[in-house]
């Protein structure tokens, strides 16, 4: 294509600084949102080890679970929980952007869909708790 183009050798090409994600609050929160996946995966690997110990017999399982009361493990689970909740909330919000909630001919405001998801989330969580306790 031979359209009028600026001479490439005369252009100034800007470069993104490596710390771009620290330069704006929304960029930083975006990176935090993406890194929730790391904490969730880390928790799931711990959970997997827990289930592995269960396969090794009741003794191994009890010994492994016994460590969980230590401040280090409580701290790990508390941090993982904080990131997991942040994931849930940001996920429900972003989903509300992707999927417009139609009520009749109108599109409902996004917070309606977000709050609806939060309600379902709380109900599902309560159900899982109930199933565990009744079992």
């Amino acid at each position, binding site marked *: 294509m031979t359209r009028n183009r600026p001479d490439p050798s005369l252009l100034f090409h800007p470069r993104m600084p*490596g710390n771009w994600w620290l330069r704006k609050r929304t960029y930083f929160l975006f*990176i935090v949102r993406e890194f929730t996946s790391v904490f969730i995966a880390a928790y799931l690997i711990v959970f*997997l080890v827990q289930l592995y110990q*269960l396969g090794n017999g009741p003794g191994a399982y009890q010994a492994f679970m016994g460590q969980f009361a230590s401040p280090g493990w*409580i701290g790990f689970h508390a941090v993982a*929980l904080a990131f997991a909740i942040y994931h849930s909330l940001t996920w429900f919000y972003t989903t509300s952007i992707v999927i417009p909630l139609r009520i009749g001919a109108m599109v409902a405001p996004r917070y309606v869909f977000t709050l609806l998801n939060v309600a379902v989330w709380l109900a599902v969580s309560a159900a*899982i708790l109930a199933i*565990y306790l009744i079992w």
Partner: protein
Amino acid sequence: MNHRKTLEPMWWGLFSAGGVVAAFLIPIHIVLLGLAIPLGWLPGSAEIFQSWIVRLYLFVLISLPLYHWAHRFSFTMSDLGLRPIRKPLAILCYGSAIAGTVVTAWVLLRI
């Protein structure tokens, strides 16, 4: 029209499914197994894991969020400066998720 073949729709689909599973289910599991039972607020019984339905559920609960991690981690690390090794990074991340899926199935089968 010759349609381009790429697996990105599949990885994105697994990422989305994992994100949904993680958003709705992970927090209560951390509360229950990571905090409430170790702190003695609730009784700790492992009997529930004997059920096949529960184990099938756990397979979904653990495996899908691994793809959610693989997708986000690979993209985010690229955005944070690893763009030159984007391809090997993606192979490593998605490969780890596949390996994690196999390990999850194995762990759940030997309970």
